[in-house]
């Protein structure tokens, strides 16, 4: 885009392709493109055009920006949710490492009692990061496990409790009800918890991410988003649509499978990458 010499239909069409291929979605991309045509009529240069729209996308994405912070209340309870395979368990491992690095006493709750080897997978992250873990056998009731973990985290003087949950499609009402029950049970031990509920989204997901965000935020007190797999070629442009509709900041991004591959979300870097 930078190499273009003037704003013409050709350039605007190329920009439309960039936006759509970044997963901003048809409607959002089209409306941006329509407004770009007004700039074309006014004789703007490509640089001016790009600056205006980057600024606009930036303001959408950085609204309400904050970092994930552990407040004074102990334990700080973080519930991690999302559809299947997005990277919840791995992200919990990365968060645990980050918090351990900050000198915090961390406990993990193996709340995925459904999927094969889910507990073993989280257990490995616990050993890698020096976090404690509360677990039961596969097939145990997730709410019961969470209740147990809440009590142990409180009684053991833990700073942070990270609760892993099974992946679930937002269209499965009974599974969403199961999560609501987990929240109710958590509140029996501490009515102010969970202090953070993080929805984990996969950067390769298309427009379905918007339905995921809608259903999860309607069902649970989601306080933040995490987008994983941004180390791939997908741009995660669905975040524009999601931020337009929901008032929930993106807190972290996953950029790999290793324990260090978690970064604070930077709205500027995100928007720049859309056009890279």
């Amino acid at each position: 885009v930078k190499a273009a010499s003037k704003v013409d239909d050709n350039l605007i069409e190329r920009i439309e392709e960039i936006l759509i291929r970044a997963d901003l979605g048809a409607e959002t991309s089209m409306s941006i493109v329509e407004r770009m045509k007004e700039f074309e009529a006014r004789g703007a240069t490509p640089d001016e055009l790009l600056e205006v729209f980057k600024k606009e996308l930036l303001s959408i994405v950085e609204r309400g920006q904050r970092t994930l912070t552990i407040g004074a209340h102990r334990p700080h309870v973080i519930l991690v949710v999302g559809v299947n395979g997005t990277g919840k368990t791995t992200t919990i491992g990365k968060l645990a490492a980050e918090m351990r690095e900050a000198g915090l006493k961390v406990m993990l709750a193996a709340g995925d009692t459904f999927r094969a080897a889910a507990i073993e997978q989280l257990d490995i992250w616990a050993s890698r990061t020096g976090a404690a873990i509360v677990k039961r056998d596969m097939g145990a009731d997730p709410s019961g496990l969470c209740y147990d973990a809440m009590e142990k985290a409180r009684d053991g003087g833990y700073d942070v409790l990270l609760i892993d949950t099974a992946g679930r499609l937002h269209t499965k009402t009974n599974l969403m009800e199961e999560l609501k029950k987990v929240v109710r049970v958590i509140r029996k031990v501490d009515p102010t918890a969970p202090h953070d509920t993080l929805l984990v989204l996969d950067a390769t997901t298309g427009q379905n991410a918007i339905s995921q965000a809608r259903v999860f935020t309607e069902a649970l007190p989601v306080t933040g988003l995490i987008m994983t797999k941004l180390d791939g070629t997908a741009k995660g442009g669905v975040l524009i649509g999601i931020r337009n509709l929901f008032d929930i900041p993106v807190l972290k991004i996953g950029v790999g499978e290793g324990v260090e591959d978690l970064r604070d979300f930077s709205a500027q870097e995100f928007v720049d990458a859309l056009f890279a």
Partner: protein
Amino acid sequence: SLSERLEGVFKNLRGQGRITEANVKDALRDVKMALLEADVNFRVVKDFVARVQEKALGREVLTSVSPGQLMVKIVYDELVEILGGDNAPFALQAGRTNVVLMLGLQGSGKTTFCGKLARRFAREGWHPLLVACDIHRPAAVHQLQVVGEMAGVPVYSEGTGRPAPDIARAGLEHARATGRNLVIVDTAGRLHIDEVRMDELQSIKAVTSPTFTFLVADAMTGQDAVTSASTFNDTVGIDGVCLTKMDGDARGGAALSIRAITGKPVKFIGTGEKLDDLVEFFPDRMASRILG
């Protein structure tokens, strides 16, 4: 839905207006929007709309009494043609050790699909062996062992201490030695842009010479589906696609994109987390779903 929208474009004309190239263009814009909203790749949509336009501007639509319905039919038929086409049902070869290699991006559903295929083909009289070649993800080998147990199928594994291609070769030898005629190789999820991981995959393929290589892709994948699928196909080579998590409400446009760009057919659909949640791919059902 697109059908409703297309009928709507022409509805106002019946009796008093003519079908013109201009309002066919409106209909085509609706087709473009619907496909993009369904996550079909931008370039694939462009080509698709051009083909539909050619058919629509032919005499038929311009003289039809029900142009909306005819447009819907043209779009639907075109989708079914691309998705289906020469697609034959998946078949294993009798009298040999079949090797099915599963590959794809992280979290797409490969390990689960290994179990699903194992269960299906065990029921059809084959003797599957699962081979655990994911030496990277924590507890991946354990996950496949549990899946194998659930499917009633043996699992060959050597933990995570040995290179994946060596485990693959040993697994194949083990299958031949123990009368297993279907080897299903689970591999680690990987990025198509990760050279080291792609080399590993090429080595696994080289030592196992698969009868069939499946790209396991998530039905909710967006525009990136084409980039990853074509890289996997160009670098390692795939024979077909398994589309997972179709029990959600993703429209699944990735299926059209992958098929259109790689030319490789979708063979199976994952419809849930249980090992029974596997169905054959039907182009007409997928076409209806993409149209919404």
